[in-house]
Structures are given as structure tokens and as C-alpha cells.
């Protein structure tokens, strides 16, 4: 079943440690030339492995620098589209961040992260 059919088009959830249930985590970022960047999430309380994410895009607190990195891969042919992306990028990221915090605060999903991801991606995980 697709997430949209189940409970609307969006969902947000804090990641919990499977061992102790803590929400405090550490991001261990792995770089290897020629490979996708991987982030290994570790529980900050008990040190348990929580999950691994494969990075497809990255945005720092300096959105312009982040979009420069993204532009190195995306091949654009339209100045109009590029300008829309560049100008809107920072606001889009900030706006979405605020929205996600609000979702967590008001209607946090009660499913586990992996259940949400599996529903959303129809079982495609990395």
C-alpha cells in the first residue's frame, strides 16, 4: 500500500534508537572517491547502529554553496529554470525545514522509519 492512500501525502518522524529508544543520534559520514557518500547513524546514548543513508543531495546552512554543488551534476538548458531553482532553493529548504518540525510537533507518524520508507518507496531501500 502506498503511503498516500494510507494517511495523506506526507509524513514525518524522529528517528529512534532500536536498542534504547533515544532520539539523540550522531551522523558518521563516509566519503570514498567515486562512491556515493554514506551516512551511518549511531545512537548518541548507547552507541547502537541505527541506520544507514545513501546521500543523493546535500544542503548546508549556506544554500547557495549547496546548489552550486548540485548544479555540477544537473544538466540544465534553460536560464529561466535555472534562475527559478537558484532563487527559490534557499527559501524552499528553509520553508520545508520549518514545515517538517511542525509536522513532528503536531502529528508525528507513529510508524517506524523503515516502515514509512518501505511504504513510500514500495520496498526500494538501499
Amino acid at each position, binding site marked *: 500500500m502506498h503511503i498516500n492512500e494510507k494517511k495523506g501525502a506526507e509524513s514525518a518522524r524522529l528517528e529512534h534508537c532500536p536498542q534504547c529508544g533515544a532520539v539523540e543520534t550522531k551522523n558518521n559520514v563516509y566519503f570514498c*572517491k*567515486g562512491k*556515493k557518500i554514506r551516512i551511518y547513524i549511531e545512537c548518541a546514548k548507547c552507541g547502537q547502529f541505527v541506520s544507514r543513508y545513501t546521500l543523493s543531495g546535500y544542503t548546508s546552512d549556506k544554500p*547557495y*554553496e549547496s*546548489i*552550486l*554543488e*548540485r*548544479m*555540477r*551534476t*544537473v*544538466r*540544465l*538548458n*534553460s*536560464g*529561466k*529554470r*535555472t*534562475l527559478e531553482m*537558484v*532563487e527559490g532553493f534557499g527559501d524552499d529548504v528553509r520553508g520545508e525545514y520549518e514545515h517538517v518540525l511542525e509536522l513532528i510537533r503536531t502529528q508525528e507518524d507513529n510508524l517506524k522509519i523503515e516502515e514509512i520508507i518501505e511504504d513510500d518507496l514500495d520496498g526500494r531501500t538501499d
Partner: protein
Amino acid sequence: MSLTILTGKNRRTVLILAIALLAGAAVSRIPFDGLSEAGRLTFGIFTMAAILWVLEPFPLYVTSFIIVILEVILLGRSGGPLGLTGSGYMIFLHPFFSSVVVLLLGGFVMAQAVKRYGIDTWLLRKLLHRGGTRPGAVLLGVMVMTAFFSMWISNTATTALMMAVAIPVVNTFPGNEPFRKAIILGIPFAANIGGIGTPIGSPPNAIAIGFLEQSGYEMTFLGWMTIGIPIVIVLILVCWLILYSLYRPKIEHVELEVPEEAESLDNRSKFIIGVFLLVVVLWLTSALHGIPPAITVLIPFVVLFGLRLLDDDDLRELGWGILFIVGGGMSLGVAMNESGLSEWLVSQVDFAAIGTLGILFLFAAVAAIMTTFISNSATANLLLPIVVGIAVVSPVSSALVVAIVSSAAMILPVSTPPNAIAYGSGHVYVREMAKAGSIITAVSIVFVTLVIYFLF
């Protein structure tokens, strides 16, 4: 379930699409004197494509597929006005895997490998260490490097790469330092100009080569570079002079922040550079061995994906949209030729009275005006099928002028993706970009037209 996709931006999309289709339908029903039914239908498709490529209600490549759908339904069906039968409609699909599309595809594969293994940043660091600190020399060095990179990888990727180096540097300048604008404008302008240098540097180049092929003219890789590189060198120098004059530095030294020593390349990166160099050599010597560049360029595709140096993720990132834009434009060109529309359009103007030089200036000016507001690929797609059909001027001259000026016009932030990226940095105003860009565009129109006029 409510129809929620028809909200916001999509309403505008549907509205513009409807207007474009209605305008196309209206044009196709006008009984133009001397234009066949197939020609009128193609004129309608051309009108619709022009509206969609100008207003961009959706990505440009979507228009390419609408063109093909309409071509096949209106022109290519059995018993249709072109008299095609059976699989005759395939003439509209062939351009999507034409030699220039394959050439661009191979170029994208090499650029992807260069980016993935950090070869571009490695080379950039190596080169930056050799530069001085005098502002004029730094600006020229940055522009030359930008132009060089954009001959081989996309203008957008090059601008992003170079801006990432430039932004931290200009941020250290005093607040009223005018030279920051020279650097911020120099990068996109050099990327636009550098793209002129090779057939894979910018889509209009490949589109021009494709249309020339359709008209029976061959433009080799080396042939293009022989014309393109000198033009790039001159325009870069002119651009540097203009920017340096407009934004004279108050500071005496500019220190580029690069790591002390670029790390050495690993074996995979060296192998990729070897493949890259082999392909370039084979491109430049195609007249000797007879292997077309479009086939040579499949070598990196086979080798890099075959040896798993690139994977499915890289395949997805290969800029398919640009390939479809090029294919769509060339497919439109096929319809315009087959239906006689190109010939009819050209016959409506007495070009002989304008003279060859006048015609080339006219093409250059029209290309510059169009590409100031719309994508340079769309400009090339719309103009090239018309201009290569004019008998009083060599098709090679017409195609080169349109393709090169399409890359050299850079007045507004929306004119090219590199301009948009530089403007997004917040370091330059539109009027500043327009002032410098207008001068460079005007110089390019005159210079390119004269060079092509005297060469051919």
C-alpha cells in the same frame, strides 16, 4: 479522488499548452499561397513549438515529444499528406539517436566520469596554483580555465565549479570593491564563450552540425574546433578587457584559496583521463582513420560502464533532457524539410537583395535577441532549419553564425544557466550583468559574423 494535479503552476501549464495548440491549429488552417497541406500542418507544429519553447510551461524536452506526436499523427500516418507508408513515420524518430545526439551522449558520459572521480577539481587546483595574484592576471586565469573546462563539460557544471572557488575569495574583498563584479561576471561569460569551442561544448553546436548533416554537409570535430577555438580566444580576451575596464580593481592582490597541494590522482582517475585523451585524439584524427566521432565517443560509454567505473545512478544523471531537446529540434527540422516549409519560408524574403554579409548579420542579431530571452538550444532548434535552406548563403556560414551567437548572447540572468547561477550569488545586479553582457553580445555579433563571412 479529486483531480489535485490541476492546481497552481499546472493550471498555467495547461493554459499555455492549450493556447499553443490552438495557435498552431489556427496557423495550419491559413491558406498560405504556395504552401502545401503538409507545409501548413508543419507550420502549425512549428508555431506551437515556438510558443512552448519561449514560454516554457514545462521542461523544454516535453515540447520535443509533443512535436513528435503531432508530426506522426498529422504528417507521418499512412495516407497522410507526406505520402508516408508503414514505418515511414520513423523519419521523425531517427533524429533522437542521430550522430550528434550520440556525440553529446558520449560527451556527457566523459563529463560524468570526470565529475564523479573529482578529476575536474583536481585539475582546477593544479592550474590555480600556477596563477599569480595580480587582479587582472587572476581574472584572466579564472576566465581561461572556465572557458577550457566548458569546452568539455557543460557550461552549467563549469560555472558551478568555478563559482565555488570564487565566492569565498570575493567574500573577503572590502565591501565597495568593484573587482568582485568582474570575477562574478567573468565566470559565466567565459563559460558561455568556452562552450563555443568544441562540438560537445554546447548543444547549439551539435544542433548546427546535425542540421548541416541533414542538408548534406559534413562538419568534422577538428573542423569545428579550427573555427571555434580562435573565436573563443578572441572573445575571452575582449570579455576580459571589458570587465577589467568596467570594474577596475582597487585591491592590489587577489589570493585564491586552494589547498596547498592537490592530492595525487588514483589509478582509476588516471585511467579515465587516458580514455578521455584517447577519444579526443580519435575525434581530432577522424579524417585519417574514418571512424565517425559519434562512434568513437561510444568507447568511454562501453569502457566506463563496462568496468563499473560508472553505474546506473550515473546513467540516470546523463542529461537525457538535453538530448531530447536536440532530438526534438532536429525532428522538427525533418518535418520542415520534408513538407517544404523551410523552402517556402525562405522564399518569402528576398534575401538576395540584402547581400551575404547583411543576411549573416541579420541571422546573428535574430539569434542574439531570441537567446537573450529563451534557451540557446531552443533558439538553434527554431532558427537552424530555416537558415540552412537559404540558397544565397552557404548553409555552413548560416549554421555557424546562428549556433555561435546563440552561445555568445548573455545579457540577462535568464539568457543562459551560467548567467542565472552567477546572478543567484547576489553579488551582481541585473543592470550590471546587462551592461557588460550587452557590450560582449554586440561585439560577438559583429566579430563572429565578420569571421564567418571572410572564412566561407
